[in-house]
């Protein structure tokens, strides 16, 4: 929340002049009939996308020259808000003169960009971006009809966020490379979830197959698994020392600490009639690893247990495992 969010602006205030003009006077609105297409020797394609129950529907008409696969004429009809009508009009216009394969490459981002008054100002407010997505979807449906294939075959990546066109692959990669922990970070890095917000979690404006909250959880779990298997591989290859203590899982950390204590600490305590046991290991929020120990035998009650002996234990572990270790006797 900040000053600019306090007084809700009208959605219409944020429409570009182009969007408003197209809403008032759509340029490519209409139909192409079978007769008209035949007269010009063109193939008529009609595709529908959306439905009244979703609040957005569009029908696209193409007249295609079969010898060149070029779309000679495109018309649209639309049930939807101002943005939907303006987007559909722009989309139809962008199709004309392109081959079917080129038209399939038109995305909702192209459509929105074409509706801007100047390159820096979005044509519509963020929550309206999804209206232009329909434009892209109906082109796919038209192309599929023309080629006689399934519309899905045109999508070579799974789109998680349709508004910003961010794929599942991209999101996972960004999470891994940048070690992201929250959905907000994903949005900041990729813009996924910044517009209609349907892809963030279930219960939004539209249902989605993939949600950011799930992708984040699954990807982080994959990363944890990745760490563990990397450590296991390193052990087998004998290159364990290349991995740092801080990347270990809790169990691996415990084993490493036990090993260090057994090697360099326990023998000396036992010699003096004492010992120690590890009670717990905890990773703290500020990046340290706390080891909780209990002294046994002669050590317990000895004055050194909180001074010299403690320092010795800590410095051994700091050197052999990680400088981020703290030892806390209980």
């Amino acid at each position, binding site marked *: 929340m900040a000053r600019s969010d306090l007084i809700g602006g009208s959605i219409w205030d944020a429409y570009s002049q182009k969007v408003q003009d197209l809403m008032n006077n759509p340029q490519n609105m209409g139909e192409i009939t079978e007769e008209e297409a035949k007269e010009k020797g063109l193939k008529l394609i009609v595709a529908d996308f959306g439905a009244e129950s979703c609040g957005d529907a569009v029908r696209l008409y193409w007249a295609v020259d079969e010898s060149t696969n070029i779309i000679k004429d495109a018309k649209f009809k639309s*049930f939807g808000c101002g943005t939907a009508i303006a987007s559909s009009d722009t989309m139809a216009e962008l199709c004309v003169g392109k081959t079917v394969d080129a038209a399939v490459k038109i995305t909702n981002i192209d459509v929105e960009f074409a509706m801007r008054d100047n390159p820096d100002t979005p044509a519509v407010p963020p929550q309206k971006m999804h209206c232009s997505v329909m434009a892209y979807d109906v082109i796919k449906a038209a192309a599929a009809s023309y080629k006689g294939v399934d519309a899905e075959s045109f999508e070579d990546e799974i789109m998680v966020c349709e508004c910003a066109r961010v794929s599942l692959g991209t999101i996972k990669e960004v999470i891994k490379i940048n070690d992201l922990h929250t959905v907000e970070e994903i949005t900041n890095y990729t813009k996924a979830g910044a517009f209609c917000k349907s892809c963030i979690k279930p219960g939004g404006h539209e249902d989605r197959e993939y949600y950011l909250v799930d992708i984040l959880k699954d990807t982080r779990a994959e990363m944890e698994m990745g760490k563990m298997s990397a450590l296991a591989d390193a052990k087998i290859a004998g290159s364990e020392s290349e991995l740092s203590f801080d990347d270990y899982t809790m169990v691996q950390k415990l084993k490493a600490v036990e090993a260090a204590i057994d090697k360099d600490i326990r023998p000396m305590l036992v010699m003096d009639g004492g010992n120690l046991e590890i009670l717990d290991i905890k990773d703290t929020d500020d990046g340290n690893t706390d080891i909780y120990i209990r002294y046994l035998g002669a050590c317990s009650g000895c004055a050194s247990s909180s001074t010299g002996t403690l320092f010795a234990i800590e410095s051994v572990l700091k050197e052999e495992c990680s400088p981020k270790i703290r030892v806390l006797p209980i």
Partner: protein
Amino acid sequence: MRVYLDNNATTIVDPKVFEIMEPFFVQSYGNPNSLHQFGSESHPALRDAMDQLYTGLNAKDADDIVVTSCATESINWVIKGVYFDHIVNGEKNHIITSEVEHPAVIAACKFLETLGVQVTYLPVNEKGVVEIQTLKDSITDKTALVSIMWANNETGMIFPIKEMAKIAHEYGALFHTDGVQAVGKIPVDVQDVDVDFMSFSAHKFHGPKGVGGLYIKDSQPLTSLLHGGEHMGGRRSGTLNVPGIVGMGKALEIAVENLDFEKNTVKRLRDKLEDEILKIDGMLVVGDRDERTPNTILVSVKGIEGEAMLWDLNKHGIAASTGSACASEDLESNPVMEAIGAEADLAHTALRLSLSRFTTEEEIDYAVLVLRKAVIRLRSISSTFSYKPDWHESKL
């Protein structure tokens, strides 16, 4: 020409109301709680205003009508106050309301749910009205409060709150009604309906924005929402909004005087508009006009999305509203639209027109012309309300 047909959202301040408020800004501007004359000179007008409120709602002297900042505040006060008084101590654990209440009621109830309170949201039938049987089926002796609106803001449909209040009392529950859309449009007599609490708001009956009230039967206890000074009998703190209170009192007086006008003239104009609308193909009006407030029409315009409809109307100077998801800031579909009936497209094609006593015949005639033009233009663009040739295979 500018025609305002969105009176359920807010209303113009009656010039007589504006006039009576004026002296209290730069002439009699003292704090009424001060001892000196600057403070006391507003007292007579304040007393008159309170008289107007009590008379206008037919409250008795033993009742409280506490002035608040708005109905949202009154609603929050009742719901949270009942929580503090009867639920926190374990005496009761249940609240009943409906799916079509104003967001203030729904949000306050949802908030209480996070604190562990059970809330039942009664469904509505296809006219958008809560049926009494549904209340009987869900009320128990652990129900602390039943909150049902007197008239719905989207549809104008009037709810059977007198019978519902009776049922609530039989089970030892309190009854609150959101009277915002009823006050000033239909006769409101709090003694007749015997409710415990009623919320209302000045800017819905030609009073100023920023002032409302809560009627409290027999001055019964209700833990305060706003603690502080001794204002409003110690029930609701905050320096009295003198001009607002004076305005609200006068606005209510005028509104009650004009209830016959509402029932006759405003209804006649509303019915005329509705009849003209029904002459157009593919228009579905929600609910029986005699069961609604006399100023409201909610119509589904087949093949045209709500925001697009408003755009065209606005272009020609006409103000209306829609419950369409696309028209709201957060894209959330209006729950009233979803709750009403099986027609899923009402959520996207709804158009709400709401008149007032200031609406003229000329304005209605103009609105009809504009509406017809807009429907023709937008349906020519529409992909869903037109003949579909049967040789193309794509599915909707």
